[in-house]
């Protein structure tokens, strides 16, 4: 990302970032499970200024039929950004970026979902980014994971997600939009906290081998924070003395 010229002070002398956070502090995160009527499972997340909905349908019949697998269920995922979700209107048709993100989110969730219990079926995950901020793929993954659990689909683990990055030569947790634009590296990570496995990892930007290790560890620590919020979203829905359901 080359550290573009900017007047923005990314990290001040007290180690405070441009939005007032400390280097190991994530943005404000709120997750709510079961927000849609028709979907079998759903979740809404606010992650900084990201506002994202995830809906899950299935396991259900596969259309077109030739995609069905007799050995296992299949997972499909669509990550889509609303045209009004960004500064300049985004054309509604899926971009190459959205197709790639759909694929990496699908592959991040696949290890967690026990698809082998549902041969010949599909689980469809639809993610709609209503408002986008930096780190939307991590927020989308965290919401999709809660939506799958909300749908009652058997899972080995939750998939949590959080990014880390390099800003002003420092490894920081949860890169926001300004930091992504002006910073030096961005590394989104998806992580299964109980199986201790990284199921999504990408990197844009230059890191030394030491920074790389630190960045992975920082992102995983962030994932563990997000995991607690994901669990709370589910307990709030299912164990709140029958208030919601």
């Amino acid at each position, binding site marked *: 990302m080359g550290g573009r010229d900017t007047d923005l002070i990314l990290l001040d002398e007290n180690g405070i970032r441009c939005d007032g956070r400390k280097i190991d502090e994530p943005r404000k995160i709120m997750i709510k499970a079961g927000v849609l009527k028709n979907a079998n499972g759903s979740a809404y997340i606010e992650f900084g200024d990201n506002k994202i909905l995830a809906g899950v349908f299935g396991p259900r019949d596969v259309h077109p039929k030739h995609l069905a697998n007799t050995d296992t269920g299949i997972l499909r995922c669509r990550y889509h950004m609303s045209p009004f979700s960004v500064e300049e209107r985004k054309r509604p048709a899926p971009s190459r970026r959205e197709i790639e993100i759909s*694929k990496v989110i699908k592959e991040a969730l696949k290890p967690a979902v026990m698809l082998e219990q549902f041969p010949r079926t599909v689980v469809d995950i639809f993610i709609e980014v209503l408002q986008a901020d930096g780190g939307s793929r991590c927020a989308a993954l965290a919401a999709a994971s809660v939506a799958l659990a909300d749908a009652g689909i058997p899972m080995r683990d939750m998939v949590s997600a959080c990014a880390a990055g390099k800003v002003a030569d420092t490894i920081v947790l949860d890169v926001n939009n300004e930091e992504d634009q002006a910073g030096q590296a961005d590394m989104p990570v998806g992580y299964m906290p109980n199986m201790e*496995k*990284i199921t999504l990892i990408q990197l844009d930007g230059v*890191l030394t081998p030491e920074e790389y290790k630190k960045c992975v560890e920082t992102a995983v620590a962030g994932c563990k924070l997000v995991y607690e919020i994901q669990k709370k979203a589910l307990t709030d829905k299912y164990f709140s003395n029958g208030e919601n359901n």
Partner: protein
Amino acid sequence: MGNVSIIDQLKGQKIHDLLEQGKRVDGRSFDEPRQLTIETGVIPKAEGSARVHLGDTEVVTGVKVQLDRPFPDRGDNGIFICTAEILPLAHPDAEPGPPGEDVIELARVVDRGIRESGMVDLTQLVLEKDKTVIGIFADCSILDHAGNLFDACSYATTAALLTTKIPKWEMQDDVPVKVEGQESDAPITTIPASVTMGRIGEHIIVDPNADEWFCLDARITITTNSDGNICALQKGGKDGFTIEQLVKCGETSISIGAKIRETLKESKGAGQ
């Protein structure tokens, strides 16, 4: 997709059993890439080109250079765009038509490795800020698919860029005019080298071949630059990695990438 044939199942089992004994199907060691051969200048009409064999995988990348409008938020930068296509003659399962998610991911990973390394100094490709810039378009055609297209396309694109000649344009009465007979090397700052590793069970292998490719649990592509730093990374496949495995993959990508980089450098001299 799915519905794996009995032969593929047996092959997968064999590959797995061999790995348990510390061997690979084609006799390579775990961190040994296949034979890499690079031929440059293979398409004289393109401003840069390279044909790469990585084992039995074969890719041609051609680079075209032409004027374009800059991206709205990057008015002081030239354009670099990389695409890929698995030609229908490359594999029985390849079909003509718009690219699927696998091919889009492939092109974006190759693009990201080169872009994030800063290989081409795009600030030197501006004719008129916010209006006219030089665009570098690298298109990878996969001719034979025998596993690990990521590295084959990445090496072909890098080798093609190393030999790319940029024509000279001048502004005359607010119109860009090409100056015939004058060209310069592309503004290259570093040589990125990607290394793709696959995980099968607990084993991590560098540059999986066709048979290995189709039974990977997970894969990771890590690109390093000439300084030996990591500049891009992409995980794929149906399962994940532990932190320890990722750190190990990072180290492997640096050491193997350094050797690949030497081959890429040599290819430049050989093509001229």
